[in-house]
């Protein structure tokens, strides 16, 4: 803010905002008048710039129409709630189609430019007025671009969080292979949050299935540091507090080496080389006897 603007005794102060409002009204009228032409121009430039390639031309045109109208409305009213809601809704529809952040930012900036060029065309003879029109237009246009881009990014983050959650759930299945025996195959990277989730899920499953024995297979675990190892020890202990015995299988030589080196106490933990051996041991604990078919009853 300049000293001149800050001075209330300056007669320009109040009339200046009125002036801006009048300019915006004029601007909006112009954009409404030329809606068809500008919208087509914009859609053409979107295609040229190879944006929104995941969508058909008709779809791009339909969305362009809605964005255009919402844009002009935001310019006119100076409120952004409707635009915000619209951009969230738009994001929800186009994110599953694979539309990227730079594309959304790109199309909004293109619309800003398309409109600005049209203003140049209209006012190029009255340079002073063009300047004032642009002064009124720019802040509003920037805020609109910002609103749409932020809306998109927020929506995207929300979807990503949801997906991460879903993947986590999927990637830690607790399987009941037979009565009272659960298998928990852990695959991938374990971070503290996932370790916690695994434990909570396992403990609930022990109770729900009245499990007596749990085989935790860590063949698919890439690496283990002391944090993860301690979580594993905690999981085994917590399962035991519920009355279930845990057998850990698939400890690779590298992981075994690491655990010994960092001094994790595994003495309380039953370990068996591989999953197959672990299940056999579990069945033994449960009192099942595995008999080869040849020795069983003749079929």
């Amino acid at each position, binding site marked *: 803010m300049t000293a001149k603007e800050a001075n209330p005794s300056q007669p320009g102060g109040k009339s200046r905002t009125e002036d801006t409002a009048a300019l915006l009204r004029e601007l909006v009228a112009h954009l409404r008048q030329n809606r068809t032409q500008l919208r087509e121009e914009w859609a053409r430039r979107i295609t040229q710039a190879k944006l929104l390639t995941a969508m058909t031309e008709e779809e791009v045109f339909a969305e362009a129409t809605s964005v255009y109208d919402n844009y002009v409305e935001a310019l006119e009213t100076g409120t952004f709630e409707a635009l915000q809601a619209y951009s969230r809704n738009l994001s929800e529809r186009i994110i599953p189609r694979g539309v990227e952040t730079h594309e959304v930012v790109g199309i909004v900036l293109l619309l800003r430019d398309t409109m600005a060029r049209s203003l140049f065309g209209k006012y190029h003879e009255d340079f002073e007025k063009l300047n004032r029109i642009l002064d009124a237009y720019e802040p509003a246009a920037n805020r609109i671009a910002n609103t749409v881009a932020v809306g998109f990014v927020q929506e995207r983050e929300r979807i990503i969080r949801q997906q991460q959650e879903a993947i986590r759930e999927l990637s830690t299945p607790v399987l009941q292979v037979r009565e009272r025996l659960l298998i928990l195959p852990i695959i991938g990277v374990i971070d503290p949050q996932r370790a916690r989730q695994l434990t909570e899920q396992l*403990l609930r499953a022990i*109770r729900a299935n009245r499990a007596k024995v749990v085989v935790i297979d860590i063949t698919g675990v890439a690496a283990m540091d002391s944090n993860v190892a301690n979580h594993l020890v905690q999981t085994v202990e917590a*399962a035991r507090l519920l*009355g279930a015995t845990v057998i850990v299988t698939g400890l690779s030589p590298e992981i075994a080496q690491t655990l010994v080196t960092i001094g994790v106490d595994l003495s309380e933990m039953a370990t068996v080389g591989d999953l197959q051996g672990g299940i056999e041991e579990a069945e033994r604990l449960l009192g099942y006897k595995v008999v080869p078919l040849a020795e069983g009853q003749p079929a």
Partner: protein
Amino acid sequence: MEVPILKQGDYLIASIQSALTDADLSQLREALVERVGRFRSRGVIVDVTALDVMDSFAVRTLRDIAHMARLRGAETVIVGIQPEVAFAMVQLGLTLKGIATALDLEEGLNFLNRRGKERVDRA
């Protein structure tokens, strides 16, 4: 609040009904140890299903009960620890090393019966 202790054959069953103060826990310990001697019990079940949290004092008391009962010839099983209680316990660093645990009363009884049978088999 006093914890009711049921005598069922060779076993004593203490089922905790609500949150316990430290004094309640100490009283439970004394009552159980006294009764193990009086009834010459072979097994003790402490049902903690109703406890929504177990801190170091509660765990130490359960451990004392198990150790004292063992010295008097009875095996102790702690039953009914809730999943989230178990998880909080291990995060706190509390375990019940060397003390039997079971999912619920039924499992606890099964455990003691198996133990009893093993003892008879050995004899």
